[in-house]
């Protein structure tokens, strides 16, 4: 078990190293310069700035220095605001995290119930309805969903009722957190419900469900005790990457709803060639994803007793 975990951690570090390397060198291919903005900058000042941040050194040397700094836990200094990147992450990531968690909970619960409903009522209006919602969720991107929600629930609802139920922008009141979380979760919810439906149909046609029926269990007992428990396994595997994606992947939604999360800083960083910001956030996201996947793999062994991780007993 420990051997397995250590091996996984080693591979994770390797993955992250390659991730740094790729982002670092690809960033060098970006046209432009972090210090050249709207107004013209004096070439002498520019050179000084470059020297100050080590940007005049050869690229390989810059890379080695960066990697060494990362090992010390230093992600560099924001080239625009002069604040440490780690500080920006520490301030903004909790907001992204909260948004992600809210979406994840919503997506899992709704996706789960829609999927079970569709499978149990297969071929009926319920099934069609649930799968229609799923189809919309998969085909409509989150930013369009966000805009639609802003327009109807934020703007139109206010016009009709005169009461501001859902604020259009911001991240301060409970109500203001609902729309972005819903917009972000819709796609995941759709995927989860479809996966749950397929998995559930698969399980419900298996032999042990027939055994359960032959024992005289009621339909509800069969569905919940024997069906759902087994059908949820593949969904859990899917939930890992999905959770990581939701926790880290809200760039656009954060921008639309003007939420001061990490995604917003990342997008702005790309827009104005803020090298340290781009590598810092990418690295952070990457590490987060890798760790999330590792946790899910370990959890899987708890949920499904047949899975004994390599290196364990048996």
């Amino acid at each position: 078990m420990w051997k397995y975990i250590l091996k996984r951690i080693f591979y994770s570090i390797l993955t992250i190293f390659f991730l740094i390397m790729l982002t670092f060198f690809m960033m060098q291919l970006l046209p432009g310069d972090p210090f050249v903005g709207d107004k013209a900058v004096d070439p002498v000042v520019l050179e000084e700035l470059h020297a100050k941040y080590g940007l005049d050194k050869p690229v390989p040397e810059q890379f080695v220095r960066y990697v060494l700094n990362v090992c010390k836990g230093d992600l560099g200094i924001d080239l625009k605001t002069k604040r440490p990147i780690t500080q920006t992450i520490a301030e903004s990531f909790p907001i992204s995290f909260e948004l992600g968690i809210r979406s994840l909970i919503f997506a899992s619960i709704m996706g789960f119930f829609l999927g079970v409903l569709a499978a149990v009522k297969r071929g009926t209006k319920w099934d069609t309805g649930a799968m229609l919602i799923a189809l919309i969720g998969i085909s409509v991107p989150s930013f369009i969903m966000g805009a639609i929600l802003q327009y109807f629930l934020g703007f139109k609802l206010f016009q009709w009722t005169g009461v501001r139920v859902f604020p259009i922008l911001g991240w301060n009141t409970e109500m203001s957190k609902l729309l972005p979380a819903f917009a972000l979760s819709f796609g995941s919810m759709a995927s989860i419900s479809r996966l749950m439906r397929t998995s559930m149909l698969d399980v419900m046609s298996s032999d042990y469900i027939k055994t359960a029926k032959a024992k005289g269990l009621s339909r509800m007992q069969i569905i919940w005790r024997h069906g759902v428990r087994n059908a949820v396994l593949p969904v859990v595997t899917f939930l890992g990457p999905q959770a990581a994606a939701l926790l880290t992947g809200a760039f656009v939604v954060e921008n639309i709803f003007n939420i001061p999360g990490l995604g917003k800083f990342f997008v702005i960083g790309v827009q104005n060639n803020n090298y340290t910001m781009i590598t810092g956030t990418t690295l952070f996201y990457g590490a987060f994803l890798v760790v999330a996947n590792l946790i899910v793999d370990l959890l899987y062994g708890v949920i499904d007793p047949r899975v004994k991780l390599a290196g364990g007993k048996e």
Partner: protein
Amino acid sequence: MADVLNIENLHVSFDTYAGEVHAVRGVDLHIASGEVLAVVGESGCGKSVTAQTIMKLNPMPPARIKEGSITLDGIDIVDAGEKQMEDIRGRLVSMIFQDPMTCLNPTMKVGKQIVETIQNHQKLSREEAHKEAIRLLEMVQIPNAAQRAEEYPHQFSGGMRQRAMIAMALSCKPKLLIADEPTTALDVTIQAQIMQLMATLRKETGTAIILITHDLGVVANLADRVAVMYAGRVMEQGTVRDIFYHPAHPYTRALLRSLPTIDTDRGAQLVSIPGTPPDLYAPPEGCEFASRCSECMKLCRANRPPMYTAGEGHIASCWKLHPDYPGEKEGR
């Protein structure tokens, strides 16, 4: 003795896109309490469908009971609602299936799966039910039953899983146990153990058993009576002795001929019945076996033979048993 199960003129069809499949077409079966009836026949002859219809396990639709009656311990099954069936299943009648590898829930402890059955039908506390489950596991000769009850099915071997299935099936002392090819998926040595176990348990519990199989060796061991099915109908029914020593139906004889014996030459080709069973989308007018029968007559193709008595408690559906048939009567 009163019959535990009475099936009369049962017709079951499946409605599919390609049309109606007449899977079971007029089956009559009777089982006295404590009796073992073997139902034999090749794949697709309707033996499993008949068995599952007794418990209404077939999804309906597409399955449909077209005609006939099933009476289990005095209860009319055909008209019973789903709630009543839930009470009957597992309590009056239970079933063990062909493949023990897939018939137990992989994420539930074996003991718990038995406890669940017990608690579903009997008012027992969790501890009592658990004790009972361990007693049942011991009864089916699972060593370290208390410890084994806490394990998951994947930690059991195939034979042990089938034993656990049997324990589960017998947990509420049903009047009738349906064993749908209980040994087909097991090793030959394990098969013998399981059959032995079923024979012992039958003596101890007095449960009537319907044994569905295509293994005639299994039949000879355990059964009191045999029903031979073909293309959705019972062709012949009688005691084991009747069927093995005085088969009255050409199909039964052909089946027995195709059994290899210990004297069969290694090089010799195994005997098989030529042809294939009839299409059950459009069953033939006459005798179902006519097209493959070596003793087929003109009459057989156009008219389905009724059941004739071939001896006491021995019936077969063949024109050659008609009282006016001039030739020598087979089987006597």
